[in-house]
């Protein structure tokens, strides 16, 4: 049975729940979401302000059949598996969770990394409380996100991962979650991460596969509609790194939403490298007093790619901190959209927030749109935001060249330097190296003779004569 994404039905959901042996409360949730789904329309880029920058109908094909099984289950070479430490690993291939392993030492400490459908039975309290808690507004799964792509996940997610780190447990190695595409179609991965008080967790969410963008695979298309919920417990520290390393024609929608409780710290890094269209919404609700979040982004867009990044931070509780920093480079005919939002609600006194986006246009033809928004309903806060888009700085380039460094190498140093500010904020095993290796390959593939350099007039202000 193949069901196009557009034609979600009760029968489809029932078949899925039967196959996964899901409890009735989860079936009810899915049914409630389906009801909302049927009442909603797909995003309309003419009318929906959050979709204004990226044409939904053109970039996302909702007619592709939903993939419910796993294709090629070989383990891709990812970040987590490249590490020299024993890590918990969950692997989603297409429509199925094919592996969930946890080192014995972590099992003993109560760490859970398992199939989400099964967890709905074995860890019913936790999953029932938190699954959908950031996408819907009540326990029955009604109300909530107005975006049909999110409702669709609530109703029909196929392969899910549940991660739980109990109170006072500090993981010293990352938990890896691989989302790997080997069959074209619609993929509906779902992740729920819950951490207890005073715990510490690092999660690497890796996206790969999708075929090859050129040649014989050119017609295959994959749509990934993903929802990740992260519940950061009191005084818990969670780092989530989301790597978009798609190799081919993948259109990726991802809501990655966290709620940070009292004194908790949440750091998020989105690395956008692969895929034809990636629209990522890294959102954070700062619900507990003194919570903090650091949403970071690194992106490198080249020919044909479209990256839309929409971090959204809600300051709900007092004295919380947020610092958003996104930096990206563009080359070829590519497009990036940064639409950052910080909302400071009326009780959020003592809020400290900052939001920055910088784009480096390497060659003509690329376009970066950047709009950092700030909406404040509370006095007594500290807020800053800024955005800049520019080319390679001619004065810096000359300085490096004048020391004997050839242009290509000088440009590479400068681009590294540009990204270093972001990567240094998150010193996690393998992340910097892997991201820089991606950047390296992008620079390698770039036509550096076409790199635009700031105007000569900008070169030496006040230095002439």
């Amino acid at each position: 049975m193949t069901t196009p994404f557009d034609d979600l039905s009760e029968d489809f959901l029932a078949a899925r729940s039967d196959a996964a042996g899901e409890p009735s409360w989860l079936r009810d949730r899915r049914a409630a979401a389906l009801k909302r789904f049927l009442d909603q329309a797909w995003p309309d880029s003419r009318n929906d302000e959050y979709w204004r920058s990226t044409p939904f109908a053109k970039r996302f094909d909702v007619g592709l059949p939903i993939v419910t099984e796993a294709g090629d289950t070989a383990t891709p070479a990812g970040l987590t598996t490249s590490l020299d430490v024993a890590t918990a690993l969950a692997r989603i291939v297409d429509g199925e969770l094919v592996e969930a392993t946890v080192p014995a030492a972590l099992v003993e400490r109560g760490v859970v990394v398992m199939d989400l459908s099964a967890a709905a039975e074995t860890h019913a309290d936790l999953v029932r409380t938190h699954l959908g808690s950031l996408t819907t507004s009540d326990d029955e799964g009604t109300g909530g996100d107005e975006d049909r792509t999110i409702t669709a996940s609530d109703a029909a997610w196929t392969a899910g991962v549940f991660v739980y780190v109990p109170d006072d447990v500090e993981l010293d190695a990352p938990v890896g979650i691989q989302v790997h595409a080997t069959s074209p179609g619609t993929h509906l991965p779902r992740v729920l991460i819950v951490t207890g008080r005073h715990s510490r967790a690092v999660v690497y969410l890796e996206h790969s596969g999708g075929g090859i963008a050129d040649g014989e695979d050119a017609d295959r298309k994959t749509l990934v509609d993903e929802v990740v919920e992260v519940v950061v417990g009191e005084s818990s520290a969670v780092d989530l790194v989301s790597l978009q390393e798609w190799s081919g024609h993948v259109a990726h929608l991802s809501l990655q939403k966290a709620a940070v409780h009292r004194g908790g710290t949440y750091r998020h890094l989105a690395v956008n490298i692969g895929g034809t269209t990636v629209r990522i919404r890294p959102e954070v609700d700062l619900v507990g007093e003194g919570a903090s979040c650091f949403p970071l982004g690194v992106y490198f867009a080249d020919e044909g790619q479209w990256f839309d990044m929409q971090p959204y931070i809600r300051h709900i509780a007092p004295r919380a901190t947020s610092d958003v920093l996104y930096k990206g480079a563009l080359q070829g005919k590519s497009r990036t959209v940064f639409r950052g939002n910080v909302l400071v609600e009326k009780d959020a006194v003592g809020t400290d927030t900052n939001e920055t986006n910088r784009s480096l246009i390497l060659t003509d033809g690329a376009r970066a749109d950047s709009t950092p928004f700030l909406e404040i309903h509370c006095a007594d806060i500290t807020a800053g935001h800024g955005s800049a888009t520019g080319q390679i700085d001619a004065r810096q380039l000359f300085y490096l060249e004048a020391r004997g460094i050839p242009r290509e190498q000088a440009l590479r140093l400068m681009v590294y330097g540009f990204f270093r500010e972001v990567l240094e904020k998150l010193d996690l095993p393998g992340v910097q190296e892997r991201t820089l290796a991606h950047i390296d390959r992008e620079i390698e593939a770039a036509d550096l003779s076409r790199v635009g350099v700031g105007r000569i007039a900008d070169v030496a202000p006040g230095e002439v004569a």
Partner: protein
Amino acid sequence: MADLEIRDLTVEVQGEEILSGVTLDLDKGKTLALMGPNGSGKSTLAYAIAGHPAYTVTGGSIRFKGDDIAEWTPDERARAGVFLAMQYPVEVPGVSVTNFLRTAVNARRGEELPVRQFMTELKEQMADLHVDQAFLQRSVNEGFSGGEKKRFEILQMAMLTPELAVLDETDSGLDVDALKTVAEGVDRLRGPDLGVLIITHYTRILRYIKPDEVHVMLDGRIVKSGGPELADELEEGGYEEIATVARA
């Protein structure tokens, strides 16, 4: 033929002629001072030698070790042994001092220097120039004080072992102590394999680095040349006297 041989050099910046026929010889082992008031074209000559893209050579030649380098890219000139200590060193965010220096040194020497050997050399030079080791982790020139920037220029000069060093107003903006450190650093690097062109408005740096010749530039031309005593005359009479004579 001199190691650096500049003949009838004319240079334009944004369509405006700044140098109007400069001729100058500099041999390795020698130190020349090029003096002149603001706007006389001293820095333009420095940038033209280094190959700055905003400075267009419209006539004449710059020969270095026998090659006409006027069409060479800045990195080619630097690898051949030209070094420009800049008046306004540029901040390069995110690029660490260590990484920058190592890349530059490898480019200049044409081989990958083993890291340990590079670090040993670097630390020796840093000690000589009183540069704090904490610099190594910082981004190039970012947040450096005026004096730190100038000392870092001289540190680069020491590591890159140029055959021609052009010091563009290296003395500007330095207090007496900072000037002394920088000047002593340069003095220590002088020797039979290095020609030095000191570009300055003031005579005070010449108290620490004795030049073999002094040339005075005015309106894009060299109008007077002499020995070290010429600097003393300028100290006394300033540029006004020379200007009056030259423009008459």
